């Protein structure tokens, strides 16, 4: 009886909110203003009881499947932490059960548990395996609903749905779009070969994008967030290739003699910048996604490679060893005004321009023989910030589209694996654990649902 009351209440709330998901941000119902600040940010506590199966759900999922994913996503965001310790989840479940029994949310209870936010959700799985989740986010201190929405997805993609909810929670509370629904492309060793893989931002759901049975390298996200460009040795030369992220189509982009390496795609001008050695020396060129319209940008006798577009495509950061060791340079997108911007440390490689355009992440070796570490600097090459420190080599950083996270590879466990961290070097998390994974490229936001 009481349970029915609860469901009726939930139904009433659902009626008061749009069933059809809107663009992120559209359904924020109360400007609670708790965690707006991006610098010196406040970390909020959140309680997420297990999502409950609704009456009439065709089947039930393992308890805790959703909140485990969402807790992890929210902690990755850097804006939330699970209230109490992991082993206090029992108290959360008990409080939620009391609420369900009484049919009202007892915010006094939740305040006593020191939760600042509370998620209450119910799911239904229809006969055709469509999964719907009615999810509500409450600000506990104000006793107010912040977000209430129904989310629908195929049940097999429950993980994507959980990421979606996590991103909306981050957006509703902070105003910043979450990155849980984004993906990372990377190189994974498969026996003697290396293939391009994709995983979710939390490292889960790894899937193989190429089956080249060869050496694949340097993946980058391409057009429409549905294409990847990379280098493959599958036809006995390091050629540049394209592949759809779902594996449905692949093609050659550049098969010129010598290396066709390190593509970087600019969505702003729809061009690839890459290193080609067809002229007997490593130079940076731009071309379209079929390798046409080739324009040479560098003319130096040294290595010029590893290009990274600025967000507005006005400039390109790159690596050159024209002074004897590799350092980071910037040139205009037409190749004019090349200038060195790193004057410290022995080697500085692998630049990646931030989505906001104000900083560049790179990999640096302080002195000969030292381990490599991840740094960021401004575009004048100043204001260096060291983000990783020791424990092995930390390499190849790539920005997330929120400008607040980076993915990189490290051999600190003895084999190269992927790690993510906040852009100030905090909140470091290993996200891959099997075999060998490296050369990550963090993908763009998916299209809004």
């Amino acid at each position: 009886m009481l349970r029915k009351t609860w469901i009726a209440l939930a139904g009433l709330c659902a009626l008061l909110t749009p069933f059809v998901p809107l663009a992120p941000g559209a359904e924020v119902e109360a400007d609670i203003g708790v965690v707006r600040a991006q610098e010196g940010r406040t970390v909020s506590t959140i309680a997420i009881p297990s999502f409950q199966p609704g009456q009439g759900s065709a089947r039930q999922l393992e308890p805790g499947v959703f909140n485990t994913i969402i807790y992890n996503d929210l902690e990755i965001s850097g804006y939330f932490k699970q209230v109490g310790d992991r082993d206090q989840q029992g108290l959360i479940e008990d409080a939620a059960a009391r609420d369900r029994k009484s049919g009202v949310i007892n915010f006094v209870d939740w305040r006593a548990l020191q939760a600042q936010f509370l998620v209450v959700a119910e799911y239904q799985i229809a006969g055709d395996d469509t999964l719907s989740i009615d999810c509500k986010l409450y600000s506990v201190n104000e006793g107010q609903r912040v977000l209430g929405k129904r989310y629908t997805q195929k049940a097999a993609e429950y993980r994507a749905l959980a990421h979606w909810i996590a991103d909306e929670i981050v957006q509703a509370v902070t105003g910043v779009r979450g990155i849980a629904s984004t993906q990372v492309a990377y190189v994974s060793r498969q026996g003697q070969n290396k293939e391009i893989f994709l995983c979710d931002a939390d490292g889960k759901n790894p899937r193989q994008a190429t089956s080249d049975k060869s050496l694949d390298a340097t993946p980058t996200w391409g057009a429409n967030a549905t294409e990847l460009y990379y280098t493959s040795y599958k036809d006995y030369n390091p050629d540049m290739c394209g592949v759809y992220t779902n594996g449905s189509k692949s093609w050659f982009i550049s098969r010129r003699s010598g290396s066709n390496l390190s593509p970087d795609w600019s969505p702003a001008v729809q061009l690839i910048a890459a290193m080609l050695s067809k002229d007997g020396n490593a130079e940076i060129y731009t071309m379209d996604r079929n390798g046409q319209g080739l324009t040479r940008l560098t003319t130096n006798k040294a290595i010029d490679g590893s290009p990274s577009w600025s967000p507005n495509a006005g400039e390109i950061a790159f690596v050159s060893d024209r002074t004897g060791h590799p350092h980071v340079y910037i040139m205009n997108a037409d190749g004019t005004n090349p200038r060195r911007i790193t004057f410290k440390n022995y080697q500085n490689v692998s630049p990646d321009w931030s989505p906001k355009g104000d900083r560049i992440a790179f990999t640096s070796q302080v002195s000969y023989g030292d381990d490599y570490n991840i740094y960021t600097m401004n575009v004048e090459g100043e204001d260096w910030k060291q983000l990783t420190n020791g424990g092995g080599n930390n390499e190849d950083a790539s920005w997330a589209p929120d400008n607040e996270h980076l993915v990189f590879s490290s051999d600190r466990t003895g084999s190269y694996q992927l790690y993510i961290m906040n852009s100030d070097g905090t909140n470091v998390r290993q996200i891959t654990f099997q075999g060998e994974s490296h050369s990550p490229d963090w993908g763009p936001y998916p299209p809004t649902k």
Partner: protein
Amino acid sequence: MKARGTISGAARGRLRQGGLGLVAGALAVVVGGCATWPSGLGGEKGRSDAGQSALVSPELERDAYPVLSTKDAGADPGERASRPEPPRRPAVSAVPQLRTVYFDYDSAELTSETRQALADAVEWLKRHSKARVQIEGHCDQRGTHEYNLMLGQKRADAVRAFLIEQGADPKRMHTISYGKERPVASGDNETAWRLNRRVRFVVYNE
């Protein structure tokens, strides 16, 4: 599917006329394990020339990779003048006269020792005017995968440029960088690193 491990009639004819003994020998080494080498094709002579030090990596014995459309692959006719098209098949045999040469850390400079070794390579290339070689650049395990692919290319290009300067035929020399992806020595020490910072030569089948 590429024809590999088979010999066309025309190729047999050339082999009978001699002059390709070494290359034929190299081929014999490759096909020897899986096919019968036809007698009287100059194979024996080739074997002695080649010195029997062929390094055949198991991975090179695989079936051909899927060959995709190349029509969008962007190679302007004008570009081919500067460098020959890569042969797009495995280079399978090492030759003693084409010695592996070594490099300092983060360097593609050719030492005097290296230049001497490469002088021998030039002589060999001149004597074997049909042989096509792959010049492979390799690096040690330190640094990013990407930068090492660039550095390996620079080493291979430096060797190729020197050989051309010494009179070798550019059209028969192809470069490939494996960065730090194909180490010959394992270990986190200078001994292993030194062995891995190398350019090696591999000969293609004719």
